[in-house]
C-alpha cells in the first residue's frame, strides 16, 4: 500500500512505529441521491496512518431500498452453534423476511473473520413498539449471548466493520456493490480496549450510528448514568456510551439534535453567564439535569441517522474535525487532505469551533452552528 511505503521511507529506523490516532470520515448528499462509496474508501484510506489496523468500518444509508420497511440485522457469530441458538431467539421475537450469509471476499489482510449473517426482520409487536422491541432484543443478544453480536439493526442502512484497516474492510465486505446517500467511515487506533471485531466502529442501534475518535475522560460517570437508564454497557468502549446517550436523549427523551449536542458539549458557565435570560435558563437547565452526559475529554464524533449527519467535537476541541461543502455534498473528516483528495475544489472548507455541531440534513441546507448567536446556514450553490 502506498501509505505504508511512505511511512517506511519516512522512518529511518524502520521499526514500524506508527504515531497515529483514529480517523473519521463522513459524506452526505443532501438531495438524498445514492452514490457509490468509492470516494469514501479512498478518503479514509488516505488517513491510513491514523489507524493501526485493529479496526475499520463503514455505515451506509439507503443501501437496502428493496427492504426499506424491514430491520436489517447484521450479526457476527463465533460459531454455527451460537448462530443456531440466536436464530431460535430471533424467530421467537421477529418474522424473518429474509436471511443470508453476508457476501464477503477473501482478502489477504483480513484474517479469521467471524461468521457474518444478514437478516431482514419484522418485530412481532404493534408497530408503535417496533423500535423499543428492536433495542431491547439487540441489547439482550449483545449482553446475554456468548459469541453473537448484533452490529447493525436499522432499516435501509447497514454497518460493515471488522479488525483491519478500513480500506481492507471495504474490500472484504465488497462495498463496491452498495450505494448510499450517506456514508460514514472509521479507521481505528484502539488504546483502551483490545482490537476485536465487535469493537470496531461504527457503533449502531436502530438507524443511529456513531464513529468516534477520542477517549472520553468522563466515561466512568457516563457509563454509570446510562446503565442506570437501562443501557448495559458491554463493549468496554466510550463510543458505546456515546451511541446509547444519543438513543436515550433523542429517541426516549425526544430532544432535538441541537439540544443533545449541547448536553454532550455544553458552553462554559462563564459563557452561559453572558447570555440573555432565556438562553441562560436553557443552558443552565441542560447542565443541571444532564451533568452525567457531559462528554468530557477529547472526542470527535460523526453521528448519523436517516436523513441526518452530525459532526461534533468536545467543547475545547481536543480532537480534529474539518467540515466542507461541495454542491450537494457535505463532508466531515479528521483531516482536510482526505476531503481534498476526492474533491479538490470545495465550495467551503472550515474548522468548526469546539462543541459546535455541524449538522447536514437531507432536503435542507447543511447547517453550521457558530459558537454564538443563531444558526447560520451554509447554502449550497
Amino acid at each position, binding site marked *: 500500500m502506498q501509505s505504508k511505503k511512505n511511512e517506511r521511507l519516512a522512518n529511518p529506523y524502520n521499526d514500524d512505529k506508527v504515531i497515529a490516532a483514529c480517523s473519521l470520515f463522513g459524506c452526505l448528499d443532501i438531495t438524498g441521491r445514492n452514490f457509490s462509496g468509492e470516494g469514501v474508501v479512498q478518503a479514509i484510506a488516505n488517513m491510513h496512518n491514523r489507524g493501526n489496523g485493529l479496526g475499520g468500518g463503514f455505515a451506509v444509508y439507503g443501501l437496502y431500498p428493496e427492504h426499506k420497511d424491514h430491520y436489517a440485522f447484521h450479526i457476527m457469530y463465533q460459531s454455527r452453534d451460537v448462530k443456531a441458538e440466536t436464530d431460535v431467539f430471533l424467530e421467537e421475537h421477529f418474522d424473518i423476511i429474509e436471511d443470508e450469509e453476508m457476501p464477503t471476499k477473501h482478502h489477504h489482510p483480513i484474517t479469521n473473520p467471524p461468521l457474518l449473517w444478514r437478516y431482514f426482520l419484522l418485530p412481532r409487536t404493534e408497530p408503535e413498539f417496533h423500535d423499543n422491541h428492536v433495542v431491547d432484543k439487540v441489547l439482550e443478544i449483545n449482553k446475554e449471548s456468548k459469541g453473537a453480536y448484533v452490529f447493525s439493526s436499522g432499516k435501509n442502512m447497514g454497518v460493515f466493520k471488522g479488525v483491519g484497516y478500513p480500506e481492507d474492510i471495504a474490500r472484504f465486505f465488497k462495498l463496491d456493490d452498495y450505494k448510499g446517500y450517506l456514508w460514514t467511515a472509521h479507521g481505528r487506533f484502539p*488504546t*483502551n480496549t483490545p482490537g476485536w471485531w465487535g469493537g470496531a466502529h461504527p457503533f449502531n442501534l436502530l438507524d443511529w450510528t456513531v464513529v468516534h475518535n*477520542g*477517549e*472520553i*475522560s*468522563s*466515561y*466512568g*460517570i457516563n*457509563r*454509570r*448514568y446510562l446503565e*442506570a*437508564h437501562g443501557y448495559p454497557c458491554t463493549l468496554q468502549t466510550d463510543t458505546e456510551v456515546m451511541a446509547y446517550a444519543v438513543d436515550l436523549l433523542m429517541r*426516549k*427523551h*425526544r*430532544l*432535538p439534535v*441541537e*439540544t443533545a449536542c449541547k448536553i454532550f458539549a455544553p458552553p*462554559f*458557565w*462563564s459563557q452561559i453567564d453572558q447570555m440573555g435570560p*432565556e438562553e441562560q*435558563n*436553557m443552558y*443552565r*437547565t*441542560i*447542565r*443541571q*439535569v*444532564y*451533568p*452525567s452526559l*457531559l462528554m*468530557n*475529554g*477529547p472526542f470527535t464524533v460523526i453521528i448519523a441517522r436517516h436523513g441526518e449527519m452530525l459532526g461534533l467535537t468536545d*467543547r*475545547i476541541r*481536543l480532537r480534529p474535525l474539518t467540515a466542507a461543502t461541495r454542491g450537494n455534498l457535505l463532508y466531515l473528516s479528521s483531516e482536510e487532505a482526505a476531503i481534498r483528495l476526492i474533491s479538490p475544489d470545495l465550495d467551503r472548507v472550515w474548522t468548526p469551533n469546539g462543541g459546535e455541531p455541524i449538522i447536514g440534513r437531507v432536503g435542507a441546507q447543511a447547517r453550521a452552528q457558530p459558537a454564538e448567536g443563531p444558526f447560520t446556514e451554509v447554502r449550497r450553490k
Partner: protein
Amino acid sequence: MKSYSLPDFLIERDDSRCIRCRVCERQCGWNVHSYDAEEDKMVHNEQDCAGCQRCAVFCPTKALIVRPHPYGYRPNANWTKDYLSDLKKQAETGSILLTGMGNDKSFPIYWDHLVLNASQVTNPSIDPLREPMELRTYLGRKPDRIEVLEDGTLKTVLAPQIKLETPILFSAMSYGAISFQAMESLARAATEFGTMFNTGEGGLPRSLRKYGKNAVVQCASGRFGVDLEYLNTGAVVEIKIGQGAKPGIGGHLPGKKVTDAISETRMIPAGTDALSPAPHHDIYSIEDLSMLIHALKEATNYEKPISVKIAAVHNAAAIASGIVRAGADIVAIDGLRGSTGAAPKSIRDNVGIPIELALAAVDTRLRQEGIRNQASIIAAGGFRCSSDIVKAIALGADAVYIGTPALIAMGCTVCQKCYSGICNWGICTTNPYLSKRLNPNIASRRLTNLLNAWSHEMKEMLGGMGVNAIESLRGNRLHLRGVGLQEWELEVLGVRGAGR
C-alpha cells in the same frame, strides 16, 4: 477529692528568652500561666493545659514549648494513658466523659487508601492555568429529563436550586457552640466566595441575617431559633436528624454558654441549658419526616430546597433512599469522623461508620433505585485536604461540608476542649473576653484563602484527569483505585484495586 490525674501537657519555658510581657498569662483562658511579681518570674501550672498552643504561638520571643506530657505510667498496649486517665476522671466525678471535635481513634481512613487517575497520552490532561476549569455546582432536586417545546424553548421548570462556586460548604456550627465572631467570619467567607455556611441548630442572629442568601438554616430537634422569618431568611432549610460525632443523641449547650444574645437568638431563657432531644419528637417514622419536609416547603413557599442531614450509620443507604422518597432535595451524610462542640466520648469514638463507605453505599443505592437525580448528596465529616474532597466527589458526592478545616483555618488546633466553654482562639466560646480576639476581617480572609487554595488544587487534579467540569468527576469511580484494601472494601466503595 484529690485528683490522681497527670497533666496532659508539659510546658517548657526558656527563661533566658522570657521577657515577662505576660502575653501567655492573658492569652490563656485556663489560667495556666501567672506572674510571680516577687521573683519577677513567669510560672505555670500545667494541670489544666489543653495544649491549644495559643501561648506558644503568641509568645513574642518563642520562649514556650508545650508538648505532650511524658507521663510515667508503665507502658501497656491495652491500658494506654487515655484509658487510665479517663477512668480516673470518672472515678472522681461519676460522670459521662465529654469531649469535643471528631473521633481521634485510628480507624481506617479510606481517603489514604484511594488514589486518583491522571491522563497520559491517549487522552490529554487539561491545564487549568490555560483552559477554563469548572467547579460550579447546583444543589437541589433534578428531574429525570428535560422537555423542549416545538419552537425550541424549554418547557421544564426546575425545583429550587442553589448555586455553589465550589463544591465546599461550611458545616453546621451553631451560634452558642461557636462565637458570634466565628459565625460572622463563616458567613462573610461563604458570601464572598459564593458558597454556603450552615447556622447549625442555634438560630441565626439578627445582625447576620443579611448573609441569609448564603445560609443553610437548620431545624433540629430542639427547634432553637426557628420561626417563619428564620426559615425564609436562609437559602436552604436543613432538618438535622443526626450528627456524625454523636449519632443517636441530641445536643447539649451548657447554661453557662447561654448569654443574653444567645438567649435571644435561640429563644430560650438566658443561663438555661439548651438541650435538644435525641429524636425529633414529631418524627418517629419516615412518614413523619415526609410531613416535616412538606411543612417546611409550605412555610417557605416551595422556594427553597429542603436538606435532611443524618449521621452515617450501618443502614445509611436504605435510610437515605427513604429520605429522598420522603421528598428531601438534599441528603447530607455526616461520617464517623465528623466533629462536634460537645459529645460523650464513648459515643463520639464508637458510633457510626466512615463517611467514605457510607457515601459510596448511598450513591450506589440511589442510582440502583433510579432516584439519584432527585436529591443532591453532601458528604461531611473528616475532610482534611482538597484531595479528600476530590475523592469524595468521585465516589458520588455533589458537594462536601467542611467543619474542622474551617475552624483550623481560623486558628483552632483541635485541642478537643470545645465543650468547656473556654477557647483561647475565640472560636468555640461565648466568653466575650475570649471571643473578641477572633477578628472577623482576618478570620474570613483566612477562610476564603482556604477555599481558594483548595479550589485551585481541585482544578489541578481535575485537569490532570482530563476533565474540565466537576460533574464529569462526580460519581466517576473509574478515576479512583484502591490501594491496600480488602475485597469487600473495594466492593462497597465500587472501586477497582490499583493495577486493575
